[in-house]
């Protein structure tokens, strides 16, 4: 942080007019932020301590009752375990795919600018529209392809079966979600000094060795941050599920976000939903703290 110590007595005319201007400059932003960001957060914490169903005129403050009942709520536990499993799978696939793609795109070959442009394209599209497109493809195109090629597992929609539905969602999520990590990995690879590769080559190291001993150590900060960002995305997954399965088939793909949504707006369990959201947020906040610590450490490099 830059420290400006010049003329800090604050008594001259210029200083005073500067102070007033700066106050006026800050006012609208701070007001909007307080009313539309901080206030609803406080409101949420308050609602989570009540028994409000979202409709009635009055409610009672019940303390931590909503949180305590979550421990014995099987719907909640099911959603939690689905979400955790989904998030872990998403992180693993994202890391492997983005590192492999970045390694390929990092090669000094012709046409790489074109390929980079193509691989980033999904990131600018709308998640829900992509999901709707894929739900149509899963429903209409793939079964047709399955019959034509006589592949049994494609004949029925992947999203219509309990065992495969989550992989369908995962695929669409990766289709769009790998773009940004790939670019971040590519940027991370630029930080590796070329001399290291050259001297390794002189020593007779092969590509596999170079990757684990040279590229990976330099890439580790990026890998950590991509992992945490993806984990946060995976834990909060909503759009893809809403567009592809809406929790089905047979409630097998209900993520935490979708559960919160359903509890609040379909099942009239408003205060429970807020408590669920707050627990989920605490998990996300923990990861954010880890992330910020890591990105600050990265600066030291």
């Amino acid at each position: 942080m830059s420290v400006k110590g010049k003329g800090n007595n604050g008594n001259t005319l210029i200083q005073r007019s500067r102070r007033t201007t700066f106050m006026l400059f800050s006012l609208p932003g701070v007001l909007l932020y307080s009313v539309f960001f901080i206030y609803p957060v406080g409101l949420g914490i308050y609602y989570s301590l009540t028994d409000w169903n979202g409709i009635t005129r009055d409610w009672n403050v019940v303390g931590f009752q909503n949180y305590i009942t979550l421990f014995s709520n099987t719907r909640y536990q099911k959603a939690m375990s689905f979400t955790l499993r989904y998030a872990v799978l998403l992180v693993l696939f994202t890391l492997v795919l983005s590192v492999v793609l970045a390694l390929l795109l990092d090669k000094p070959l012709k046409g790489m600018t074109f390929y980079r442009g193509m691989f980033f394209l999904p990131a600018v599209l709308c998640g829900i529209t992509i999901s709707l497109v894929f739900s149509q493809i899963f429903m209409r195109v793939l079964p047709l392809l399955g019959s034509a090629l006589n592949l049994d597992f494609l004949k029925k929609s992947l999203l219509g079966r309990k065992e495969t539905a989550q992989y369908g969602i995962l695929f669409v999520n990766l289709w769009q979600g790998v773009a940004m990590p790939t670019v971040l990995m590519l940027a991370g690879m630029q930080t590796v000094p070329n001399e290291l590769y050259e001297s390794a080559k002189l020593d007779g190291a092969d590509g596999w060795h170079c990757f684990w001993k040279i590229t990976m150590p330099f890439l580790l900060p990026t890998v950590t941050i991509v992992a945490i960002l993806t984990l946060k995305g995976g834990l909060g997954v909503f759009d893809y599920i809403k567009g592809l399965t809406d929790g089905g088939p047979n409630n097998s793909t209900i993520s935490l976000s979708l559960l919160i949504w359903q509890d609040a707006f379909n099942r009239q369990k408003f205060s429970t939903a807020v408590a669920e959201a707050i627990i989920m947020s605490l998990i996300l906040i923990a990861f954010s703290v880890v992330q910020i610590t890591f990105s600050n450490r990265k600066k030291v490099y």
Partner: protein
Amino acid sequence: MGAKRLGKTFTYLLLSFGCMLIVLPLYITLVTAMKTPAESLRSFLTLPSGLMLDNFDTVISHSGYWRSFGNSLLITVIVLCGNVLIMPPLSYAVTRSMGYSRVFRVLYYYLLIGIFIPFQVKMIPLVKMMSSFGLNHPVGLAILCIGSNTCESTFLYVGYMQSLPSEIEEAAYIDGASPARTFYETVMPLITPILATSLIKEALWIWNDFMLPLLILNKNEYFTLTLFAYNFKSTDNTDFGPLFACYMLQMAPMLIFYLFAQKHIIGGLTAGAVKG
């Protein structure tokens, strides 16, 4: 040499396969939008027999299409204008006062708290809050979005402004310019790169956002284009051509935008991703 060429071919093969995976769904969307369902059912992959725009016509002549398009555009424009008008002055005040003023130092940390708070905490209370304010319409949503994005924008701007030398501003002060004038005439022009980054990021977010409109905008007449696409149903289930046309129309503006501003978009979306 042979191994090297093999590696090169292998690289291109893998990359082309990846590209195919990305392009195929978009290709299917586009060609299915230009075919009759009967034609599509014969094969989804073939090119359409002619330039049939009936399906697009069905979507565009739907009473909600242009209204939703207008709502999306209105929200995006208000949010971007709000950002330009409100966030740089705030960030400037924070950047230049943080060093000696406790008030502004506290303010900076107050703004930073937002980075740690996930959307889910306020997702549900927002619905009640917005309807009690009477703000569950596009303009209300836009105001909400400006407020929600405060910490992210300030974070970007403050980071950038800290790297600007303050000598030019000092010179302007000595010449007798007021603080406001100094800001608008000497600082604003210097921050255009980061302004562009922030606006691109925000525009993509607003245009593609689904959850906030779904939460706040409950009336058909307030729908954004994403909500329109989500709620769009063909009159009968076997006529899926218009559906694909509708999805194509939602994605088209962003595809065109990407075609022309690819470099800025990649830079904009990845800037701050590492931190935010």
